[in-house]
C-alpha cells in the first residue's frame, strides 16, 4: 500500500508516493536519484548515510521515509555544487581530508550541523560531533584539520 508524503529536500518541495517500509536512504538514492548519500550498512552503525533532518544529523538507513513527512532534509547535494562549492567542502579538499570518499558526504554534513551550532568548536567538541562518522581510510587528523579550517573560513 502506498503512502503520500511531502517534505523539503535541499530547499525544494517534494511530493512523492512511498511504501510504508521504504527507507529514507533508498528514497533519496533510488526514487529521487540523488546518489551523494551513501549506503554502507543498514544498521545505522557506520555513518555514510548521514543526512540533516531539520538541521540535525540522522541516519537515513534506519529512518523510514514516512517518518520525515513534513520535515526538511538536506543531503550533500544541497550543501554545494561545482559552481558554488561550500567552504566546508573546500576545506576538506584543501586539507587532504578525502581518500576513498565514501564517508565524506556524511562527514561534511555532520560538520555543517556542528558549525551551524558552534562556530568555533574545540577539538573535543569536533571529535564528539563526528564520533558517529567512521572513516576507515584515514587517521582522522586531516578531517579534524579540515573542520577547523572550515570554521575559520566561515567566520
Amino acid at each position, binding site marked *: 500500500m502506498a503512502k503520500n508524503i511531502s517534505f523539503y529536500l535541499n530547499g525544494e518541495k517534494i511530493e512523492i508516493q512511498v511504501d510504508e517500509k521504504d527507507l529514507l536512504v533508498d528514497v533519496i538514492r533510488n526514487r529521487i536519484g540523488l*546518489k551523494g548519500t551513501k549506503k554502507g550498512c543498514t544498521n545505522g552503525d557506520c555513518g555514510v548515510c548521514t543526512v540533516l533532518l531539520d538541521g540535525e544529523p540522522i541516519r537515513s538507513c534506519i529512518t523510514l521515509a514516512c517518518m520525515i513527512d513534513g520535515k526538511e532534509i538536506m*543531503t550533500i547535494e544541497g550543501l*554545494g*555544487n561545482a559552481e558554488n562549492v561550500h567552504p566546508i567542502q573546500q576545506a576538506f579538499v*584543501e586539507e587532504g581530508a578525502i*581518500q*576513498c570518499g565514501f564517508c565524506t558526504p556524511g562527514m561534511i554534513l555532520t560538520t555543517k550541523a556542528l558549525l551551524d551550532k558552534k562556530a568555533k568548536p574545540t577539538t573535543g567538541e569536533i571529535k564528539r560531533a563526528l564520533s558517529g562518522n*567512521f572513516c*576507515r581510510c584515514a587517521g582522522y587528523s586531516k578531517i579534524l584539520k579540515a573542520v577547523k579550517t572550515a570554521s575559520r573560513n566561515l567566520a
Partner: protein
Amino acid sequence: MGVILEDLEQEVKAIHADQNDLNVVGKRIKRIEALAKALGTARYAADLKRDDMLIGKALFAKHPHALIKKIDTSRAEELEGVIAVMTAKDLPGRNGYGILIPDKPVIAEKKVKYQGDPVALVAAVNEEIAKKALDLIEVEYAVLPALDDPREAMKDDAVLIHENHPAADKGNILTEVSLTRGDVDKAFAEADIIIENLYETPMVDHSYLEPDVCIAEPDPITGGLLLIAPAQFVHATKRSLAPVFNLPPNKVRVLSPVVGAGYGGKEDSCLDVCSIAGVLALRTKKTVYFELTREEIFRNTGKRHATYIKHRLAATREGKVTAIDVETILDKGAYVSMGGLREPTHAVTQRTVMYAGGAYAIPNARAKSYSVFTNHPYSCAMRGFGAPQAYFAVESQMDELARKLEMDPIELRLKNIVRDGDRTIFGQVMKKSRGLGLEECIAKVKERMEWEKPLERTAGSRKRGRGFSTFLYGTGVPLPFEGASCYATFQTDGTVSIAVSSTEMGQGLLTAFTQIAAETLGVDFDNVVVNISDTDASPDAGPTVASRSTTVVGNAIINGCTQLKNRIMDFASRELKADSRDIDIKEGKVFIVGKPETAVPLGSMVAKAFVNQVPLSATGVWYPPRPTFSGEDGQGDPMHAYAFGAQGVEIEVDTETGEIDIVKFVLACDVGKAINPVNVEQQMEGGAAMGIGWSLMEEIDMSNGVMKNDSFKNYPIPSIKDVPEMDLIIVEHPNELGPFGAKGIGEPPTVPTAPAIRNALYDALGIKFNKIPFTPQRVIEEIKKYENKNS
C-alpha cells in the same frame, strides 16, 4: 653505538641534490577526484544502479561445513517476479574461480565449506521478491564438524575439508613454505641467550565502507559481459571469471569506477560478486544488480589470515642476534585466495617466512609456515599481507631480548639492522642504491619520542610505558608476472591521455600518476587525464596491491611518456633544425636548450607531428629485475626495493580497567620519494589507524565455523576518538629503480603498530602480551594473573 642525526642529514642532502628542479612531482597537489567526492557527485558502482536492472540475491550456506543432500527451488521459481533461479547444475562454464587457483565454487554443488558458499542464486524484478524467493528454497544438509583451529585442522585425523583439492600438500594443509640459512642448530647450541614465545594474531575484517557490488550487463554484440564493480585487479577478474562464463577473456570487460576502499579485500571479493551477477545476467539475458549486505560482507568475503607463531631467537650477550627458528601456522579458511600455492605463488604464506627475521642481518635462520584450510571465510590479502603478523612476533622478541640484556631497545635494533651490503634472512643483499633509510627513520623516531628522557611511570592506577618497533617491507609482488603496461597518448592538441588498469580506491594514485606523467612529459598537470581500471581501455598493470602501483606502474607511465617525448623531440629536431639531444620540452613548450626564443607550443608541434606520420600513442612497460624466491629454502630476491620504517608509541594503561590510551605516536617511513606528500601522509595515517584497530579492538569471533560478530555493532573499528594525534615523518632515500626514486607506502604503516604497543605494555606493566588485540578484557585478565602470581 648510536646514530648521529647531523651525519645522516648530510648524506640525505646529497641524495636529494639533483631532485630540486621538479615541477609537480614531490608537491602537495590536491587530489583530482577530491572535489567530486566532497560534492557527492563522484560515481561509485552502486550509484550506477538503474530501475530496469534485475536484482540478484544469493542463498548462502546454512552451515559452515555440510554436505548438500537435496535442494528444491521449485517454489521459488513459481513466485511471481522471479526471473531465474540457479543452482550448480545451471552454470554455463567452470564452477570454480580464484586469483591463484580456481578452487572456489560459484555455487556449491555437493558440499559447503564455509558460511559464505552460495547454494542457489535468484534474479527477480525487485529486492523484496528476491528475498522472498530465497525463503522458498529448501535445502537439506548433512552437517559435518566444523574446523576452527588450523593447528587442529592440520592433524592427520582431522576431518577433510577438500576431498580432492588440486593444490593441497597433505590433508587440510594447503602449502608449506620453508626458509633455511646457515647453521641454526649450532647457533642455538652456542647462544648466550634464547628467547622463545608463542604469538597469536586474530582474523580481522577489512571493513571498507563501500559494500561489494556488481552490475553485470550482457553485451548484445559480442554475447559477452560487462562487469561494473569495485575491484583491485580488473584484468585478473576478467581472466579468472571468463571460464566461469564460458567466454574467452576478450569478451569479458571489467570496469571499476571510483572505489570506496579495498585494503586488499576487494581483490577477491570482487570475484565473489561478479561471478554471481555475471551468471545471472547470462541466464536472464538482462542486466543484473547484485550487492552484498554488510552482514554478508562480514561472513562471506575474505579476511586477514589469523596466525599462530612459535618464535625462537638466539643471541650473544653483546646483543647480536645469531639465529631464529620460527614456525607459523596460518588459518587459510575455506579457499586458497591469496594463501599461496607451490612456487612461486606462495603469497601471504611466503611473507610470514620472509619477514620472520625482521629488518635484521641474522646469519642463521629457519622459518617454516603452514597454510591450513579451516571452515572459515577464505583468508585473503589485507594491508600488510602477512607482514603485520610476522613483525608482531619478531619485534616483540627483540624487545624481550633487550630487556633480558638490560640494553636499550633502540640500541639493540641498531646492533642488528641491515645496512648497505648486508643480507636479510632470505639472502637478499640490501642496497643503499635502492633506498635504505632505516637508520634515519630510527634516529628521527628516537628524537621525537624524546626517548632519552626518563618517563614518569605511575599516576595512581595508571601506568605509562614506551615501545618501539622497526621494519622493512618490499615494494611489489615476487611473482614472474610482476610488471606493468599502460598506454600513453598525445591528443592532437598536445594534451595527454594515460590509460592504466590500476584502481583508484582512495590511495590517490590517480593524482600521483598524473603528476608522474606531467613531470616526465614537461606538460602542465591540468593537461593530463588518467583513465583507470577498465580492461577495455588499458593493458594489464597488475593488481592494485602490494604497495606497488606508484613504483611499478609509475615506471611504466614514465616509459610510455618518455617514448612519446622522444618522438616529439625527434620530430622537433627536424622542424627546429637542431640535434635532437639539444631539444627539450618544459612547461608545455618545445625548444632548443639555451635558446628560449625558439620555443614553440607543444600543442602545435604535436599537431604537426600528427600529420607527418608520427604515431601519438605508446605502450609504456616496466618490469623490475626478475623476482626470485625459492619455496624450499626461502632464498632469493623477491622485491627490487624495500620501504623501511620505525615506530614509537607511549601508552598509559588503566590497571584497574585494562583500558589503554595512546599518548604519543611517532611513525617514520622511508618511501624513497614522496610523489605527493599529502598522499603519503594519508597512507601513513590510515595504515597506522588500521594497525591501532588490529592492536586494540578488532577480532572476528568464529565458533564452530559460525561468525558471531558479523556487523559493525559487534566489530568495532576505530572512531575519531580512538585514534591519537600522530607524528608522521616522511623519510626519503631514493630507489634508483623507482619513479623519481619512489618506493611503496600503502601497506608499511600497518606493519609496526602492534609490536610497538605490545612493547610499550611490557615496559609499563612488565607483562608480556603475546595475543592481540589488547582489549581491556585481555589486559585486565593478564594484570590480575600477574598480580596473583606475584603476591
